[in-house]
């Protein structure tokens, strides 16, 4: 399908003022506020546009399957450093960027948005706009490509995206330590202040897993410094995949799943004790997952008291907005940006921020 097809759909919907639900494989339908509108499936606009390993940049169309892109990178021993969760086989590159979610490597390598170099987008007026490019350094104009990362399709349809990629590390070692929550947080923040090759962490129910990556020459002395038990390579891979894809047992069960982003040094949250399913901590302490069925306000308060924010990530029924409320000045800018890129308000309306 050519991009004109999508452009025409958007122009038509804008003229009729009927909402469109931009959608890739639908693997993240659960994320954000209730999607609404007529589905516009992006998967027919697919393919790798350009990939030159020595440039460390890949450009793909939005509808490309994320697993296909990752496969292409693997052939050249490269990968997406932000380790995006797929949440299903149908995940697309465009959906991945629109959701803006990063995986276990977030604390060490950076977030998805850090690797977005350029985007081609069809906005709510049907204009095809290109921002950024295929180069690492680019300060011409405002950084609209990064603005689109995590915008949940509310500003435009991500037609094409250029991402920075990196070579895979030559070696990997997972460690497991027995530590209580408070001690684990202390330890994680301590290690992060030292030049250790920790690329992922996960704590749950008294056990802390760490992933070390790099040259063997860097890993071995780090293992000696950190201690703990060496986890078998295959078991390690399975664990990090289960954390990234939320197939770990913690993520099961019917209670709503909350995602709290907090400063990494935040002490154990009292709510964690109350949550029936307990808590799982990633990103060196900066990300706390909570299975909690109590009042939303309590989670939101706990997060904001710590200087962070809480997202209702997965729930059978979302009785509260998915995302934390925005400060007045920020909300005003949000509304202005939305109105500028999508004046008819037809693109994934309300998915990120409630309509005025």
């Amino acid at each position: 399908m050519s991009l004109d097809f999508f452009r025409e759909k958007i122009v038509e919907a804008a003229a009729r003022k009927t909402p469109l639900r931009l959608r890739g494989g639908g693997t993240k339908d659960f994320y954000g506020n209730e999607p609404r509108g007529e589905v516009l499936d992006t998967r027919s606009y697919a393919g790798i546009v350009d990939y030159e390993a020595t440039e460390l940049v890949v450009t793909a169309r939005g509808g490309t399957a994320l697993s296909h892109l990752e496969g292409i990178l693997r052939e050249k021993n490269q990968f997406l450093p932000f380790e995006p969760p797929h949440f299903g086989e149908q995940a697309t590159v465009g959906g991945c960027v629109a959701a803006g979610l990063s995986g276990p490597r977030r604390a060490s390598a950076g977030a998805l948005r850090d690797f977005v170099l350029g985007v081609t987008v069809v906005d709510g007026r049907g204009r095809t706009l290109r921002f950024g490019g295929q180069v690492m350094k680019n300060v011409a104009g405002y950084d609209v490509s990064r603005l689109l990362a995590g915008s949940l399709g509310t500003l435009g349809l991500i037609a094409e995206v250029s991402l920075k990629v990196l070579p895979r590390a030559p070696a990997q070692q997972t460690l497991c330590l027995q530590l209580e929550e408070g001690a684990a947080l202390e330890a994680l923040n301590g290690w992060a202040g030292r030049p250790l090759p920790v690329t992922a962490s996960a704590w749950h129910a008294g056990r802390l897993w760490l992933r070390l990556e790099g040259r063997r020459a860097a890993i071995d002395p780090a293992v000696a410094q950190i201690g703990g038990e060496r986890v078998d390579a295959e078991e390690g891979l399975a664990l990090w995949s289960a954390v990234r894809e939320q197939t770990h047992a913690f993520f099961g069960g019917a209670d709503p799943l909350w995602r709290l982003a907090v400063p990494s040094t935040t002490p154990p949250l009292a709510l964690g004790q109350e949550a029936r399913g307990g808590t799982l901590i990633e990103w060196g302490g900066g990300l706390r997952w909570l299975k909690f069925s109590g009042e939303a306000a309590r989670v939101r308060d706990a997060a904001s008291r710590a200087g962070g924010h809480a997202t209702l990530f997965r729930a059978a029924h979302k009785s509260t907005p998915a995302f934390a409320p925005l400060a007045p000045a920020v909300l005003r800018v949000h509304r202005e940006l939305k109105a500028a890129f999508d004046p008819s308000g037809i693109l994934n309306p309300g998915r990120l921020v409630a309509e005025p």
Partner: protein
Amino acid sequence: MGAALPARQREVAEALRAFLPARAVLHEEEDTRPYECDGLTAYRQLPMVVALPETEEQVQRILRTCSAMGVPVVPRGAGTGLSGGALPLGDGVLLSMAKFMRVLRLDPKARVAVVQPGVRNAAISDIAAPFGLYYAPDPSSQIACTIGGNVSENSGGVHCLKYGLTVHNVVRLRGYTIDGEPIEVGSESPDAAGYDLLALAIGSEGMLMVVTEVTVKLLAKPQCARVIMASFDDVEKAGEAVAAVIAAGIIPAGLEMMDRPATRAVEQFVGAGYDLEAAAILLCESDGTEREVEEEIAHMNEVLTRAGATRLTVSRDERERLRFWSGRKAAFPAVGRISPDYYCMDGTIPRKRLGEVLLFIRDMEKKYGLRCPNVFHAGDGNLHPLILFDANSAEQLERTEQFASEVLEKCVEVGGTITGEHGVGVEKINQMCVQFRPDELEAFGAVKRAFDPRGLLNPGKAVPTLARCAEYGRMHVRGGKLAHPELPRF
């Protein structure tokens, strides 16, 4: 752009003196003169009034006052910028953030520092050093430039391939909109809710908000670092060697290239120990634990040798490493010594087009009769060709500008950009019309209006109006012969 009427100047200065101490409001020419330009000295303009606030509350009141009076405001850090982003307006207030020099919080455990915008880039790493931490972006002006200016320009440096730019190392900004409304973007917790306004604000050249507080990420300092100086008898081979290093799965901590005219200028100035016979040299750095660095340096040596390096020298100790870097970091002032003036360009290109672009620059040297040494952040494709000229000759200045504009347009043509890290400012505003289409420029305008509906914050920078592009397009067709030489061309 012309000077404001004395009555208006008096009116604005008086309104500001109502709440600012007399010494914090300047309007006499002898006092405002030091603010007439930033690092891009070819463009000068006296501001109507200079304001030097010391507190957030004062910043807020200045903005409210200017906003109410419809006076444009130009924020300024240390004034080291190279694209004229802090060029004053003759009918505007120049808002100097120089007095915001305090470190508000250093949290070694959380690895963040909260600083005011006037804190110097290098000072952040200095205060973090006792904790084994540092702030990664290191623009070559780092001893003088401020973090506020770095935020405005999204500054880079020689280590960004591995450690990122300002946008990757700043997590939160606090400041005010043009109406004096407080605004906070980003957060100390990962990935703040809503649109990524932090990414928009960084690199926005002071056009979206006035920043009063910056939270930066601090990284653990690697145990050791060593750098290889590799010589090549051909510039293109040096470019291919860069690709070979990346293809071998190595991300060097720094990867820089200098051509012979550049190394020769530098050597006279600092004595960095460069190979002056080489057509080009690469500086390729590894950092990490001692054993890791040893292994990686060996790997790099092997790749560089295979790629045709004619000589390899590895720094033996920290002193020698810093000496090798001193030449690269002093490249601009060194070139300043061999020519009355130089004009620094800042295009970024896909690395694979390097050979082609360097040949193009050589042709331009002949076409315009001006010399042009090259320094290059090779790892991330960011070129800094330095055109040598004499600003006392108006004709040479004009040739220089045409030379530069042809090179920047070449960068766009090969899939790159007109500015990698110095910003658009007033300098490259015409080339924005080449890189972007009208719809995209209109979208930038909409972003600006979302923060600043009346266009009072640093107007006229970074994003050209469509009318200006139409005018530039007309000028362009005439092959550099300007239709109205009497018009100021910013």
